[in-house]
């Protein structure tokens, strides 16, 4: 199977051609068709399909499906903006927002946060009126890593950090912990010798986090100090 064989499909009436084996989400994004997404990373073989934002309707399939987990097929007809799709996307977004801190001004990711981008795209506020706000039963800031801080009420549990970390030499410095609503990201073995230095050089998780829930402690401190200065000025 040559990687170069091209597959032609129709998305929202537009005909696009992409290499065989491409994931539908990537095919759309590469062709200028935006679909909200949080948990997908390009080279993943089995995307987690967990954020449930990248839904699309494919003709011949009954319900909306996550586009990150579908491979393109010749002659596929895809719709990215049907009512059914938007309804579920908006609900998924509302649900994420309902556990979110909502203090964008105080966040390092302000203006380049994926949640802000999606809010704009879906015409949704970053505060939900319909659902009550339920913060996770955890401290605002968790500082048990030598140099990285984690903010559970910003985290959307996309799992990108877990994925990239597992790809680093440092096998699983990071993983999911706990269950259900209180699922969280946790640093394992972060008290071990050398972890701090390793992570400082690596920065993979901090850089991939779409919402600024992971940051280097010193960078965040500097940011907050700066902000404080601006506010008082």
């Amino acid at each position: 199977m040559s990687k170069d064989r091209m597959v032609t499909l129709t998305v929202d009436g537009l005909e696009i051609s992409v290499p065989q084996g491409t994931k539908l989400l990537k095919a759309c994004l590469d062709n200028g068709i935006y679909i909200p997404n949080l948990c997908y990373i390009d080279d993943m073989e089995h995307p987690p399909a967990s954020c449930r934002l990248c839904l699309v309707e494919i003709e011949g399939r009954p319900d909306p499906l996550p586009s990150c987990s579908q491979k393109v097929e010749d002659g596929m007809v895809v719709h990215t903006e049907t009512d059914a799709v938007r309804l579920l996307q908006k609900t998924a977004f509302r649900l994420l927002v309902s556990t979110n801190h909502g203090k964008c001004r105080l966040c390092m990711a302000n203006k380049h946060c994926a949640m802000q981008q999606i809010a704009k795209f879906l015409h949704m506020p970053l505060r939900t009126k319909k659902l009550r706000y339920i913060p996770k039963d955890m401290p605002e800031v968790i500082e048990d890593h030598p140099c990285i801080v984690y903010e559970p009420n910003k985290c959307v549990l996309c799992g990108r950090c877990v994925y990239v970390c597992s790809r680093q030499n440092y096998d699983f410095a990071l993983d999911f912990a706990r269950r259900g609503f209180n699922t969280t990201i946790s640093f394992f073995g972060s008290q071990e010798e050398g972890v701090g230095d390793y992570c400082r050089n690596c920065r993979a998780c901090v850089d991939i986090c779409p919402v600024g829930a992971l940051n280097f402690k010193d960078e965040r401190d500097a940011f907050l100090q700066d902000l404080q200065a601006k506010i008082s000025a």
Partner: protein
Amino acid sequence: MSSNPTPNEILSELTQAAEKQWQALQNPAVPVIYVGHATCGRAAGSQETIDGFKDALEEKGLEAEIITVGCLGHCYAEPLVTIHYPGFPPLMYQKVGAGEARVLVNSFIQGGEDPCFEYLLGALEPNDTFPTLMDYPRYLYEKRVIMDQCGLIDPHSLDHYLAVGGYQSLAKVLEKGDKWVVEEIKSAHLRGRGGAGFPAGIKWDIARQAEKTPKVVICNGDEGDPGAYMDRTLMESNPHQVLEGLAIAALAIGASRAVLYIRAEYPLAVSTIEQAIAAAKECNLLGDRILGTDFSLEVSVFQGSGAFVCGEETALIQSIQGNRGMPRYRPPYPAVEGLDGLPTVINNVKTLSTVPAIVRKGSHWFRNIGTEKTPGTAIFSVVGDVEYAGLVEVPMGVSLEHLIFEVCGGIKDGKPFKAVQIGGPSGGCLPESELSTPIDFDSLRQAGAMMGSGGMVVMNDETCMVEVARYFIDFTQHESCGKCTFCRVGTRHLLEILKGLTKGEGSDDDIAELQTLGEEIIKGSLCSLGKTAPNPVLTTLRFFKDEYLAHYREHRCPALMCRDLIAYYIDLETCARGCDACVACCPTEAIFTTSNRKKAIDQEKCVKCGECVYACPPEYDAVRKVSPPEMVPDQGIKPLDKEEEENNE
């Protein structure tokens, strides 16, 4: 004939010896005592029963053989004991504790005088003197395909299993081949009993035709549904039947490795299965070159650490691989890409346990049981407010009404039926109007419930359906793996709303949110845990909407169950002067004596535990429960003042 013996010839040599031993047991020279000693028996005290028999026999200097067997499914009657006294039919006794064991030894086993009718459940064989078990509705209506030997043979004896035809199906498949058995299972329309009802034959065929090797079969014995225990029972009561089914599945797809995934909370199932694997290996029924052929199967047990979601097949695979048990998106299905990326067939314990019978008796025989779309039997663990709780095996297609009222004897204490929750924690709650629904995968799904793993909770009219929905959502949101948005966050919102309702807080908007969010969680979730979790909410909303409305509009719990919405008071008309049976039971000393020396409840102090209801003697029956709490009548009660109290002493 070739010089190499066929699998059948090797097996029949093993079987002959076993049969001889079995025959001897059927016409015993000394009394044989069978004691139900699976988990349910043990919980009811079967170990003391065994000791009781041993002690009494020793005292009297009598000889008898004691054999431990598994569970018959009549869990309400444990410890169950069957005594086969020479010259009598085998007689089954219920609730035999150490004391009853002694009586049975003294009056029956010693001399065969008095067969103790007072503990007798029935005879296991037709005869002229004793009623037989088959005369009970429970037995009459049951159809035992999977459980037919449970509770009758010793699970620790390979010989017992061989004597009742064990491993003959494996030998048959070894001779007829993989293609034949896949076709046979396909034509039997055997559907997976783990919940989804996917046709086992088709699953096997996909894995058989998958290119990658080696291949793997997994027996799913996770059984995480609270209240369901049929898989445990099968593993504890007839482990070789599971293993035979597993070996046939392996042969069918060409697997060389088999894993039994059993939850660690099932220690007896684990040890019983492990012992059975060792015994089967010893006799060349598992392991290398099975029954002289070139089919080999390495069988192992993996103990799961008990998360409900680990029963989901892709999460189960993650768990065996040493990762966090989180489902992954399908396709690819495990039959194509499963354990370690290899083609993997995962089947439920009941599915695999059905296989030997189908191979032995043929797909045609199997299709004649149950319905056209779902042939065979269903095993339910029926719990709740029902007369005879326990495991029942009935043909698919019988109605819920038949199962609850005929087979299980109806509602306990003659109370009215209210609802039945079917399919485990994410099954639906069906009201009386749906009782004619036939039990099979498709009909139940249509009614809003599901087959699930076969958990069934029967509820009487004292059960609040809002509270029931809250209870089950509390379970599923706790057990959610936390991976996907709808299930992780959505079920939590459902729970918050339901919690509010049970306290009388809520609005029309909340009810609308329950409905739409529930539907969206079903559509949007990644795995079936999320895709079914809202079922209890949606079905109770559909069938018991009034009850929801009463909670927030009138602050009233019609079933008088939600604590925040009820109150207790004492009816001065019926309360007996001078009686103080209730006073001591109250944990908060809320009950005081009135000026006319009756009792009353201080509402400020009462925590609504309900103890006083039970403490009040039935002839007075003076404690009343009402909802909303404002319904407590003003009875013009004055406490008996201190001085008077002292004078009276």
